[in-house]
């Protein structure tokens, strides 16, 4: 590849560029913007290698330009600290380079294809082996194949799966490899239950879909081969006009095994050993040695902000318990789902300043705090905010108020951010108020506490909670009311395969209830429904024709469980 060449030439390079190269270049450019795979489709197989060359050349140039810019910014004035700040901007901001993606696919497929024996044989002591193979030897040979198979996948409806990307054109060979892959998985499963219990149910459907779709795909491929010769332009537009989603249609819902409930998942995760615990401990010790410096700088009017990968909660907690014990301080969990600036200000005025009474606006409240701090020079307050960039606090107004709060002379703010674009929250004026000193505190700690308010996708989604609340509410209702609800639930379950099911219309519902001797008039039904609605058990919406439709906003599995339980009770 011509990468070194591009780097050496540095300034300007004039060379002959054939039309195809230009075309492929254009196609590639657009592809990066939209979706790489599409662009790759548009380019014919023959020119693939050429394109690769082109790209790497461009990249070299780009990185060079980037370096110049960075140098102008004064990176050159950096000491070799080795905390990775020397990474050039090009590396950080380019997300998907073609090189990287194909390598990934190959790695994944290789992992999937190498059966369990090989794992047992050499234990893969050298990770370099996997890294090395795709880059050099395989590339030129396998590119064509890879390209073709990708095309097939795009046009057919087969699931888009990473490990199949490298699939050989021969379908029988493919299914073989597929089979061995799942074999290896089964082998592994016995070794370690923890990881695979979650995923064990997946293989059967996976195999089934693969088997079902492979023959038509092969036929299609032949057809495509003929069409491939048609003009490039057509293909280009075809690729770009199609809005088909390239992911597979398999979902977690379709898995046969039940998903774990929250608690078991939690327990399993807890049992999993934390990798690199020693190194992480060393990292946090490094950060802890800065505590006294932070105190000094806070007192000199700076505020401190922590960034970097990993949860910084433990670090701040340690700071709090070790240094702040003797002084008034306020801890704010920014990740708390219903935190507001008002609640922060309230806790300052009510609990720190012992003020009773409410304020009309946060600004007035801020003014009051300002006045109190000005009056009493000995008053001081440390404010620790975990996740200053959380959903609830990232708004412009809340940031403004927090910035003003932090600029008060007696208030010392120390906060952490995690979002990659968090610094965009602040304009120059706010930055001035905050007066940040940035500290990089990469900890690699898992975000356990911060994500505890979210539902895990792996666990059952709040199903148990909804079920218990359902039964709880219904138990307090009359027998008739329960019957009404059951009726609606049954009806909804009967229609669960109908995707365009709008809900049960009120008139039909009334009719059915009447027939079941549950209500005797329109009004009694409405009264019951109001009760349900107040407990958020049902929801209504108006259809296009103005008819009121009723439905239960609970997922089907929960509803089934509920009915089963009810039947037992009755």
């Amino acid at each position, binding site marked *: 590849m011509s990468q070194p060449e591009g780097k050496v030439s540095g300034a300007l390079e004039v060379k002959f560029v054939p039309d195809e190269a230009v075309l492929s270049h254009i196609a590639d450019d657009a592809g990066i913007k939209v979706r790489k795979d599409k662009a790759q489709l548009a380019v014919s197989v023959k020119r693939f290698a050429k394109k690769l060359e082109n790209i790497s050349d461009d990249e070299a140039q780009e990185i060079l330009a980037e370096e110049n810019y960075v140098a102008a910014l004064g990176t050159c004035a950096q000491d070799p600290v080795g905390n990775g700040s020397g990474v050039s901007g090009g590396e950080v901001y380019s997300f998907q380079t073609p090189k990287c993606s194909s390598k990934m696919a190959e790695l994944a497929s290789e992992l999937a294809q190498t059966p369990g024996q090989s794992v047992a044989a050499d234990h893969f002591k050298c990770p370099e082996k996997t890294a090395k193979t795709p880059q050099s030897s395989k590339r030129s040979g396998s590119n064509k194949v890879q390209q073709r198979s990708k095309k097939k996948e795009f046009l057919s409806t087969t699931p888009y799966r990473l490990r199949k990307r490298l699939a050989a054109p021969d379908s029988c060979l493919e299914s073989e490899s597929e089979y061995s892959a799942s074999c290896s998985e089964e082998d592994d499963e016995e070794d370690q239950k923890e990881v695979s219990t979650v995923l064990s149910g997946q293989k059967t459907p996976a195999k089934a879909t693969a088997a079902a779709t492979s023959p038509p795909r092969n036929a299609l491929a032949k057809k495509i081969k003929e069409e491939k010769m048609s003009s490039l332009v057509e293909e280009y537009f075809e690729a770009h006009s199609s809005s088909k989603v390239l992911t597979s249609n398999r979902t977690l819902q379709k898995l046969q095994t039940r998903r774990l409930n929250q608690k078991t998942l939690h327990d399993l995760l807890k049992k999993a050993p934390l990798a690199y615990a020693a190194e992480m401990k060393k990292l946090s010790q490094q950060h802890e040695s800065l505590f006294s410096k932070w105190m000094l700088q806070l007192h000199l009017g700076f505020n401190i902000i922590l960034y970097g990968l990993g949860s910084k909660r433990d670090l701040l907690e340690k700071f709090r318990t070790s240094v702040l014990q003797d002084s008034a301080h306020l801890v704010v969990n920014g990740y708390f789902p219903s935190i507001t600036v008002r609640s922060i200000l309230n806790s300052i005025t009510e609990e720190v300043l012992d003020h009773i009474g409410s304020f009309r606006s946060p600004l007035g409240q801020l003014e009051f705090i300002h006045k109190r701090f000005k009056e009493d020079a*000995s008053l001081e307050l440390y404010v620790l905010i975990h996740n200053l960039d959380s959903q609830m606090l990232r708004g412009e107004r809340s940031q403004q108020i927090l910035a003003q709060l932090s600029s008060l002379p007696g208030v010392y703010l120390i906060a952490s951010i995690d979002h990659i674009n968090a610094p965009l929250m602040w304009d120059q004026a706010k930055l001035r108020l905050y007066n940040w000193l940035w500290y990089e505190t990469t900890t690699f700690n898992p975000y356990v506490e911060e994500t505890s308010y979210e539902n895990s996708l792996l666990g059952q989604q709040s199903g148990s909670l909804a079920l218990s609340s359902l039964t709880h509410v219904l138990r307090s209702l009359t027998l008739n009311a329960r019957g009404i609800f059951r009726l609606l639930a049954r009806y909804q379950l009967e229609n669960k395969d109908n995707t365009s099911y709008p809900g049960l219309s009120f008139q039909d519902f009334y009719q059915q209830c009447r027939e079941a001797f549950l209500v005797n008039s329109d009004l009694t039904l409405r009264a019951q429904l109001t009760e349900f609605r107040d407990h958020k058990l049902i929801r209504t919406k108006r259809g296009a024709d103005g008819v009121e439709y009723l439905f239960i906003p609970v997922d089907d599995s929960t509803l089934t469980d509920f009915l089963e339980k009810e039947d037992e009770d009755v």
Partner: protein
Amino acid sequence: MSTHSISKGCFVFKPPSKKRRVRQETASNSTERKNDSEDTELRFASCQSLWAQIKLETEKIQENLNKQLLDNLVSFLRRSHSEFQEKTTEWSCQMKSREIPTAALVLGVNVTDHDMTFKSLSEVLQDDITPYVALLEAKDCPGIKNLMQKLMGQLMNCCIDIDEDSFEDDSHVQVSQNKIRCSMTSLINWYKSVMKKTDSETTRKKRNSSSRHWQSPPVVVIFKDMESFTTKVLQDFIVISSHHIHELPLALIFGIATSPMIIHSLLPHSVSSLLCIELFQSLSCKEHLSTIIDKLLLTAWCPFKLGEKVLKVLINIFLYHDFSVQNFIKGFQLCIVEHFYSQPLSVLCCELVDAKKRVNTLSHNQCENIRRLPSFRRYVESQVSENQIALLTSDSFLKEVTQKLLEDLQLYHENYVSVLRCLHVFTSSLPKYPLGKQIRELHCACLENQVWETEEYESSLQLARMLNKSDLVTMLQQCVEIFVSSSGKEFDKTVEKLKEFLTQFQELEAEAFEEDVSVSSEKELQKKTDLYHLQKTLLELKESRRSKKLTKFEMLRFEVVDYIDSLVRNYLVPADHKTLYEVVYFNTASVLRGHLNAAPRTALHTALNNPYCYLKNQALKSDGGSISNKAPDICIAYKLHLECGRLINLVDWLEVSSSLASRKLTTWQG
């Protein structure tokens, strides 16, 4: 006392005992607790005092820079409503035009610095012109109603503040603003009542506090950030107030960050014609910075110095990021703090007199610290052997030497500044500015390495040798002034020498006449020639010029340039060649950069792509690009995430992860 709860996001902790300590004390304690090395308290104190001194100085500089602007504004405001004072007839006809006197204040893009300017502006106005000043910001005024509310709130509050101390019985002015309907009429009523009161007040007793104010002082409304106001609000406000201008002497001040054209693009002609605009330009932020650098860094009084890299980082942040002088000063403060925190010997970084005293009280540990300094080691090696032993063994001898060295350092700084300025006089007028236009660039170049070895210096000397006489003479005169005003004592001889050059140039002037005549006569001879002869004479001329011996002027010019060169070589030695420079120079630029100009994105990227940077485990060492099986789970997940496009199928994704993870597990076991 846990801070985890599912019902609450804020947790307040108060110290169990109610004893309150003074802030300073805790601060110094916190430094003391950790830092086991010497003299922390003293260092903290000298850091504080130095910073206080610098802060005072910068504020003074700022004040001086703004003085001109503020004076102009004040005189404008005085003029604007002078008609209002000289009752009735003249101004009534004037006011028919209904123009509101308006000052457009162009402040530049460094928005963060504006606050300071506005603060001093409103202070000056309240002192000299009127107690009624309102500062409005766009974010407080989304609609005309909010604007009026804010305006009246500020005006009436200030009025109440003033009234409170003078008399109590009058209550009808002190009605809270919430009860008044916020309209122009109520504002006018308020103004009239206030005026009446002050009238009666002044007749009853002399008030000395507001005697500087006029009989009916104007109401000044300042729009801090005019660009961010919505057009509608501004238009409405201007139209409404122009209707009432004959009852309420209003004056507006627009703070503008971009260019004065913005007024016309924001306001249609019908509205802008209601304003009588006068333009005021504040000093550009770059000039502001040069003044700060000039007064703060290139002086001998400030014992603390910035190293070359640090200065470059600060200047780059200024030029490429915010143009904010305030941020520059903040960076400077951080440098001071870092220096005093991290360098135990910074205790000697103070006035020379104090430093000498402190040297005497240094502990043994500190002496060892001195011996460990690289610059001091170099110094020791250059000494004769018995001196070396004495320096390394005897503390008292070391202290003596240290005192002398500190003195040298101080002297070096004094001389350095003068010579630097002198060199800058020469280089700043050369074409293409090989050594930079600003003195800060020259300063950086001199700090970086021996400036006379650089190419740029060479070329600027070449250019200097081609200067014409008048330029040269003026430059020499400037240099003489610099040396005369400098505090260095060594420069008497230099001044003499330079003066000598000047007189020589004057002598030359007389001789020059004669030469001119001879040259012209020579030219006349050549007048009539054919092509061949012309060529020949030209060749001859060229020959002669090559071998021609230099004129007296040229000789003298060479002499001058050589003299300047010798000065540079003598005095502009880079600081890190000086012994004990570590005591006063702060040069860890990476720390500064990390704290002020951090790159969270890079940190995340590195942590995810190359965890070895943080977790120093050999297993993680990889050549980059590929996914190592042994990387922490989050890194693997991130890479797989990159692999998928915008939409991720969790099932597929998890399957790949599990195949990677299972591989990982076997490797762990194996």
